[in-house]
């Protein structure tokens, strides 16, 4: 007997229910491959420094496809989402706050 007190977030763990369709898996693969081609293409398009942003946007899209379909976030319970969310949140802090120092250092002060 198992007791989950976040059971309302807990999807019943039935293997047969969580089998992917082959088509879906392959479709995701194609999407990500397109992303790779786009990434390489961008770097030939002389965007200069803004290429960085475009690259990162493409990568984020690719990775969210991987996470949502291949890592089965689409079938995950809210606890898994919470874990992913908190990791992303700390990542955000880790980038935003040091950069708030680096990008304003030359300004001196008011």
């Amino acid at each position, binding site marked *: 007997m198992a007791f989950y007190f976040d059971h309302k977030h807990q999807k019943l763990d039935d293997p047969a229910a969580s089998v992917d369709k082959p088509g879906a*898996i392959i479709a995701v693969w194609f999407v990500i491959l397109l992303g790779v081609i786009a*990434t390489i293409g961008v770097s030939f398009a002389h965007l200069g420094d803004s290429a960085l942003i475009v690259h990162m946007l493409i990568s984020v899209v690719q990775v969210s496809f991987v996470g949502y379909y291949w890592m089965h976030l689409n079938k995950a319970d809210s606890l898994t989402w919470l874990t992913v969310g908190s990791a992303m949140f700390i990542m955000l802090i880790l980038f935003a706050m040091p950069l708030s120092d680096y990008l304003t250092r030359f300004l001196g002060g008011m």
Partner: protein
Amino acid sequence: MSANEGALKHHFEDIEQQRGAERLGMWMFLATEVLFFGGVFLAYTVYRIWYPKDWAAASSQLNVLVAGINTVLLLTSSLTITFAIRAAQLGNRKALMNLLAITGLLGAGFMCFKAYEYNQDYEEGLVPFCKNFGEELVHDPDDKDHSHAATTTFNQQWEKKGIAPQRIRLFMSFYFIMTGIHGLHIIIGIGAIFYLWYRAYMGWITADRYVGVEVTSLYWHLVDAIWLFLMPLLYLAGSHHSLHF
């Protein structure tokens, strides 16, 4: 339930609780991994903002073709391991074993290309941990006919273009640290996959006991995802005019 008795470890109430725990544990571990790479990504970002010119120049020394091939290999391996889960869920042992084997081999292929690339960097004197950094003789890109022998060194070319060699060195050390750590993860992943293959071979993975495959695939997908960020950051930091082999 009887089929589950074996898989059920003594301290869990039932197989479902155990699956939940193992899956959650892997996700937590992945969160840790993300932060682990996050630190070095931050360091990279800071210097890329400070030294865009130098890092573009350094990045254009790297082998984009190999990087592209590696990306495809890794993506395909992620594809196959996703199919492996499916096979496990459907209890198709043969397919499971084959898919796992393919996944592992694709990973191994990735590492082979990586080794080739490291070796190439070493021969071009682009390894920052070696004395010969930037000192190898290379053809001067300015004189179009490559008739006469290599005359100049990277250091000279960088000096001429007003690029500080120690910043190139900084980039290259980031390149080796990042790809090195990532490669280490790949090797661990390959090990895990072949252990899974062994368990599949022994028939310990069945339709209701596939969580091992699932958590391993989660790990493998994360390694893949990190590569999707590394590739543009390291190999495509500068705008390319021609593929450099």
